[in-house]
């Protein structure tokens, strides 16, 4: 805030940051703030009223003084409003819960800043803790796993103006009053290290401009190993990882040097591919640049460099692997294999952008709101792992034919990259016993995980025996039932499997028809091949069923936009509509048909 004239900091308590902070630390922080002369700090104060004129706050009243014409009012800190719960639920500072996040009414759960875990008097202040609480509540709700909430050691790293602040805190001990403190100060360096110790163990650390290895302290707090004060003293200035350079990215000098050395980074620009250090708040950019320059000598000129892409790929793999492990934990029956992961991802060969484009298109195709894109994307990604069974029953293979003529994406991308089409009689390599083994395997080993696509009608007459499939001569009906029972999703394709209408298409063909203008002008084809036909006039008089059918044919057309029945001069026969074979498949107007 270079241009600000005055900054008033109202602090509700009588101290900055934490009550327990030593006066040395307090002074360091305070003097850092006050150094510019623009900031004043008012303790035990808060806003109690304000004056608004014409929509502008013209004056703030605090407990102690008034502030005129405030330019910017900035509130920090959270105090959830739990008044609504006070009558019905047991509350203290927050809504009281047990270790499973249940409130005094066991059917009501509370998580996050609103909840106070009674046994440890803990109120979450970090996202991580909030998520953990939500996990605990969910697993308790579904009875899937016995999990108790136990807050983890938290590490706050702040770079505030002139100073760095590090706070390693164990929520378990956050209410602890009986501690001893080792404070090491170095006025020259404006450094204060405060070690909160109880029974020889570290329970908290707060450092101002501190350089200790935070990771080490975190371990100390978590594991509750006895401290070695002389070790702490020896390492007060430089930890193994060196000085903390980027507090936003939690990056130490050594980390940066490692990145530079391993990837042969020669300038700040290149570093961006590996870490955001120096780029988040930007304060440490100069330091980062200096380190890169100073570390050039560390780079082994003969070492093969790992590209940013490779690194990204490794990270992606690690993420997916983690996801799969989680999946396997939750579904112990369905052990997904992580061995082939890298190849699988390569095989999909889809850059994110390409994928996103395709997902957008498919989402739009299904006439879904763009918000569904994430869901569609997720669906497509999992589709790769999910087998697809395509059953042809009493069909003409027309849908399969149309399917293999799909253009965006192309059929080869579709079957090699996007979906795992494991069973499709028209295309699969194996036959007879071999193909049926494939089918049996999916049905019995991947219950609830495969997608079933059904093409063709299901003969019901003669107990279904008009169609027999497979070595045992199952009827089409039996086969369908067998496959459908444990399918995750069943899609019927074509008018034989699904007798319309298509819900997804709200657009009436007639309304989007390229020949609609001629209809309005009363220009009609009167007989096949007449002058009107040559000019592309309206086909209504020739029995076009466009006014009675809802589909996207006029906009999407067929065969990569080549044509559609109206363009072909014949008119629509409503083939997506219910009972079109009996009602609409004619070349005459509806009223002429009796």
């Amino acid at each position, binding site marked *: 805030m270079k241009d600000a004239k005055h900054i008033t900091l109202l602090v509700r308590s009588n101290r900055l940051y934490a009550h327990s902070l030593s006066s040395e630390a307090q002074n360091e922080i305070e003097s850092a703030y006050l150094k510019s002369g623009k900031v004043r700090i008012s303790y035990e104060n808060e806003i109690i009223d304000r004056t608004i004129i014409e929509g502008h706050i013209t004056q703030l009243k605090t407990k102690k003084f008034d502030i005129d014409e405030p330019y910017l009012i900035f509130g920090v800190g959270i105090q959830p409003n739990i008044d609504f719960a006070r009558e019905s639920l047991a509350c203290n500072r927050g809504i009281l819960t047990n270790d499973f996040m249940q409130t005094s009414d066991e059917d009501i759960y509370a998580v996050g800043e609103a909840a106070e875990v009674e046994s440890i008097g803990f109120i979450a202040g970090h996202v991580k803790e909030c998520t953990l609480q939500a996990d605990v509540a969910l697993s308790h709700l579904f009875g899937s796993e016995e999990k108790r909430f136990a807050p983890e050691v938290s590490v706050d790293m702040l770079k505030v103006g002139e100073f760095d602040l590090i706070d390693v805190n164990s929520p378990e001990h956050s209410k602890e009053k009986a501690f001893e403190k080792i404070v090491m100060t170095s006025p020259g360096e404006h450094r204060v290290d405060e070690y909160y110790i109880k029974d020889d163990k570290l329970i908290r650390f707060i450092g101002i401009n501190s350089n200790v290895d935070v990771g080490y302290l975190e371990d100390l707090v978590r594991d509750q190993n006895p401290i070695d004060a002389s070790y702490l003293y020896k390492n007060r200035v430089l930890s193994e990882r060196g000085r903390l350079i980027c507090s936003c990215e939690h990056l130490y000098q050594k980390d940066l040097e490692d990145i530079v050395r391993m990837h042969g980074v020669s300038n700040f620009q290149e570093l961006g591919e590996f870490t955001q250090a120096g780029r988040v708040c930007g304060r440490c950019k100069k330091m980062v640049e200096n380190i890169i320059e100073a570390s050039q000598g560390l780079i082994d000129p003969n070492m093969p460099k790992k590209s940013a892409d490779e690194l990204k790929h490794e990270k992606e793999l690690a993420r997916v692997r983690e996801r799969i492990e989680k999946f396997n934990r939750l579904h112990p029956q369905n052990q997904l294999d992580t*061995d*082939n992961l890298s*190849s*699988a991802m390569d*095989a999909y060969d889809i850059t994110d952008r390409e994928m996103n484009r395709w997902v957008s298109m498919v989402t739009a195709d299904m006439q879904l709101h763009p918000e569904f894109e994430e869901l569609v994307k997720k669906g497509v990604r999992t589709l*790769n*792992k999910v087998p697809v069974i395509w059953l*042809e029953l*009493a*069909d*003409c*293979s*027309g849908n*399969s*034919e149309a399917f*293999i*003529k*799909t*253009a965006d994406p*192309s059929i*080869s991308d579709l*079957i*090699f990259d996007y979906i*795992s*089409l494991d069973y499709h009689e028209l*295309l699969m*390599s*194996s*036959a*007879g*016993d*071999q*193909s049926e083994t*494939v089918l049996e395997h999916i049905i019995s080993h991947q219950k609830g995980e495969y997608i079933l696509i059904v093409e063709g009608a299901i003969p019901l007459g*003669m107990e279904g*025996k*008009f*169609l*027999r*499939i*497979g*070595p045992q*001569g199952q009827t*089409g009906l039996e086969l369908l039932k067998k496959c459908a029972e444990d399918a995750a999703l069943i899609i019927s394709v074509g008018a034989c499997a699904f007798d319309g209408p298509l819900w997804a298409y709200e657009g009436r063909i007639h309304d989007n028809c390229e020949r609609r203008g001629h209809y309005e002008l009363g220009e009609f084809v009167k*007989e096949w*091949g*007449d002058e009107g*036909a040559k000019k*592309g006039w309206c086909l209504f008089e020739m029995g076009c069923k466009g006014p009675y059918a809802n589909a996207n044919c006029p906009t999407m057309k*067929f*065969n990569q936009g*080549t*044509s559609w*029945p*109206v*363009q*072909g*001069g*014949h008119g629509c026969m409503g083939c997506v509509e219910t009972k079109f074979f009996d009602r609409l498949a004619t*070349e005459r107007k509806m009223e002429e048909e009796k």
Partner: protein
Amino acid sequence: MKKIVIDPITRIEGHLRAEVEIDENNVVREAYVSGQLFRGIEIILKNRDPRDAGLLAGRICGVCTNVHFRAAISAVEDAYGITIPANSEIIRDLMALALFLQDHVVHFYHLHLLDYVDVTKALEADPELTSEIAQTYSSEPYRNSDTHYIEVKEKLKKFVDAGRLGLFSNGYWGHKAYRLTPEENLLLLSHYLEALKFQTDISKAVAIFGAKTPHPQTIVVGGVTSVADMINPQRLNMFIEILKESKDFIERAYLPDVRLITRAYREDIKAGYGRNEGNFLCVGGFPLDKAHQLFEGGVIFGHELERVHPFEESKITENVDRAWYEGDEPHYTDLNEDGTLKTRNREDKYSWVKAPRYEGKPMECGPLARVLVSYQKGNRFMKPFVDEFLEACGLELSDLTTTVGRNAARAIESAYISEYIFKLVNNLIENIKYYDTDTWSRYAFEELPHQAKGRAFFEVPRGVLSHFVQIKDQKIANYQVIAPTTWNASPKDSEDQRGPYEEALIGIRLEDPSRPLEVLRVLHAFDPCLACAVHIIDAQGKALSKYKINSICSI
């Protein structure tokens, strides 16, 4: 004797089952081929307006869609004695011929190739060597570069390594009947991928005049409706451009690939692998000008290739002794308890496919029949295509009457069509140039005869297609279809003569009866299409001659 059941036969249209009996040397001694689905579109057609026959009959098959559409309309036109404008005939031919190319390429690469190509072996291929090999089968091989093969191999490797084989799951990989080298496997697989694109593109050609495919919608009694497309030069150019591209693929990939297979399986060809009775049927068609047509009609019996008899439709009969019909009704006698076909007794019925016969004999139709008949009848356009292929592969004409030969005939025919389809486009352009833009013959429906019978015979990708219609009181009273696969996949008849599929299976030896790849190979070479094949017989009995009328169908 041991019985092997293969159901479903995959990589075909429809529901086909084969049961073969093998001896102690794993040689097939008896075969039963059965259509396992009855749909009965003909029943739906009854009592409909004859003008709608095409829209409904087109749905008999989504693969051969436009040929059923056309045949139904033509049969009605034949019944009413309506001749259609030349332009409409050409447009119908263009749609049909583009379908030939689409079907033949899809058949070879996507429905048949994996009987010859071991996907897993392709992973061992040397990409450089692959491009060298491609040079030996074509002077200008399609997309022939080391980097392309490296890319394909890489794609394949990643796919296989990813652990989900999708369509390649549980294939016959490693089977002894696979004889190609790793490089040959890679070469053909690279074309498998290219052909996926090919068939998407060529379908646009059908859609230009057909509005869409599968199931085009532009043929009407009296002509076609896509007149606006016909008189639009840009649409004609688009058609030509697509056909040029496909000709390129057929000449530089498809034909060379079939030569490669022919060389690798020369032994099988010379041993007569997949040979049957040698009765061939072709009705001919596709006029190129007033004097010539693309295919000649004719009939060959018992491998007497030099003697081509004229085709006479009165000689067609149908037999349902072994098919699930009794008189004019479906009559299902079920399977055995264990799900196998009932075949113990000579009168047991075992298929929904009926058995059409010509002069009482089972007949094979399709590309092989067309090539043999046209060649022997001296079709001067066809001849060089056949001669060139036979010479390049060191084969004789009779070598084509085998499993590999059927594929060769199909590839020869594709190259031939992709050359002469331009002649048809030219004819169309000539007409338009001289102001003939007629696409429909006017008729007043009310004034047409109220009782009529008509039929249409066509050469379609898989062979001879015929539709028969009987009209009473302006409604369809009876409808009947004999499709190519009805001929080829027919069951045995009252004389116990096997159908062409069955006969072709006799004598082949299985390397591994638990993985009957050889049976698939023999059957796939015919390009089965079962949705087309199954049709009820007409209410009047078995002989079709009653449909015979004097006016010659305009094809």
